[in-house]
């Protein structure tokens, strides 16, 4: 059966109830966090809170995850994509124009196949 519209109501996804539940759960979580902090007070020594990096103390500017490598594990999964597609995004105008022409050909062929 094809629907006329998705009904957002009290059925599978009731947004008002769900939002209230989300807020309630957040509040409970927050209370547990605050309660936990009161019961077990952290007393770190100066040595414990220092950033450990091969014995060196890093400045705040240096203690930053490299944005490009942030999801390097995911990037590795899609390695073929990054190897072949990314070089096309180098800012060279002739490459952009080449892909416009390729796009036109693809669209032309696809429309011809679909409409015939």
């Amino acid at each position, binding site marked *: 059966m094809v*629907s006329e519209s998705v009904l957002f109501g009290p059925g599978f996804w009731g947004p008002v109830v769900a939002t209230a539940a989300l807020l309630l759960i957040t509040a409970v979580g927050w209370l547990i966090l605050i309660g936990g902090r009161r019961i077990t007070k952290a007393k770190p020594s100066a040595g414990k809170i220092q950033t450990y990096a091969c014995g060196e103390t890093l400045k705040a500017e240096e203690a930053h995850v490299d944005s*490009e490598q942030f999801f390097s594990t995911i990037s590795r999964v899609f390695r073929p994509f990054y190897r072949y597609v990314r070089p096309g995004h180098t*800012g060279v105008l002739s490459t952009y124009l080449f892909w416009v022409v390729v796009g036109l050909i693809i669209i032309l062929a*696809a*429309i011809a196949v679909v409409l015939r």
Partner: protein
Amino acid sequence: MIPHAPILAIVLPLFAAFLMPVVGILARRRGIKRAREWFAIAAVLVELVIVVSMLPVVWGEQILVYQLGGWQPPWGINLAIDGLNLFVAVIVAGISALVVIYSFVCMERDTGLDQYYTLLFLILAGMMGVALTGDIFNLYVFFEIMCISSYALVAFRRKWQSIEASIKYLIVSSLGTSFILLGIALLYGMVGSLNIAHLAQKLPLEPTSAIIVPLALFVTGFGIKIAMVPLHMWQPDAYQAAPSAVAALFSGATATIGIYAMVRVVYTLFGAFAIGIMLAALGLVTMVLGALMALTQRDLKRLLAYSCISQIGYVLLGIGLGTVLGVQGGLFHLFNNAIYKTMLFMIAGAIIYRVGTSNMDRLGGLWKNMPVTAMLFGVGALAISGVPPFNGFASKWTIYVAGIEAGQPVFTIIALIMSALTLAYFLKALNSIFLGQRPTHLKNVKETPLFMLFPIVLLAALCVIFGVLPQLGIDIVRPAQEALMNSGGYISAVLGGA
């Protein structure tokens, strides 16, 4: 409805654009500060009122046909306003109003603001023209007005990077508009008319083979504007180089216009619902490529530009499915995307305004300095990732259901995975900018100015409202979906008994 509202919606920004330098000169001579900005805000708010005044008539299932010079279509030029183009016009007017308010502070350090506001209003006039016209050649002319103003605005700061991006955008986009013009010429040669309704009436009589080339030219031409893969490459460069207010306008309003023009031509003019599956497939590719490219970006604006490409993929997927639910989902996502993408670019602009860079590797720990901005970024990030209870969830959910109902569960699975990737790259951005250790040089950074914060808060509120009350969004979108799927009604309303 305000009398003559359809033509006023186009003429008002056009006049405001040409009056802007005069207002600027008079304000300088008389020593009135910010007169130009206040004039711009007043003009864009009046524009919004004019557009909104048409809603009761059009939502009352009436198609407004405004004949210019009293000439009957197809002989004269007419403006034809149904649920679809009014929906788009409201988005455009609303986003433009917020961008002009945002520019008040965001652009205060720039010079040449007479030209800036002139170009901004020219873009608005162009967008309104594209949205409201019932004539395909007029649509092209207004599209060109919008595009040419956009090229100039990308290069507005006249830095090497912005000029280079603008030239690339100009060349690629001009190729696209040439395709559109060629498509119009071919249609005119075949049918001998430029009226969209008249063309839609006559084209089914032409052999299918004759419409393949013009249809492909139109899809490619508008595909460049909406940055559909593989025609997308100009967009990250242009969005990164443009002032943030301009990038916000592009992402929220001009992208919406591009999608409108494409669906109006493909579905209404050609009645080519059959190529919907091709649009859905291209939408999937666009979605995947945009998300994977966004994942490895260092610059926030560039990340947002790729994210824009990815989200347009969702819109194309929904609309391409061609079912009631798919079109509803696609249009709802278009509406939501305009809200949160504009908001996210505005936040990027606020960060640049305060810190001077959008390079995420040079940021961090800004939560302490900009808590409200950080919270709003969180709202935008969750909304665009489709996390409940924000608006992105409602539209993406509709698209997922539409995919399964249309017998394309693989499309839904890919869209779901890309949603997870969207959350991943926005969490990266959130972490790099607002969390972690704060570099010493960012110690004295202040919160976003209130005047800049106002439009962002408003958009964030919309993200929550349409997330918690998605039925309201569906109700807004439904007249647009019904108009898009009822070409016959559009044709008979414009041509009458002709």
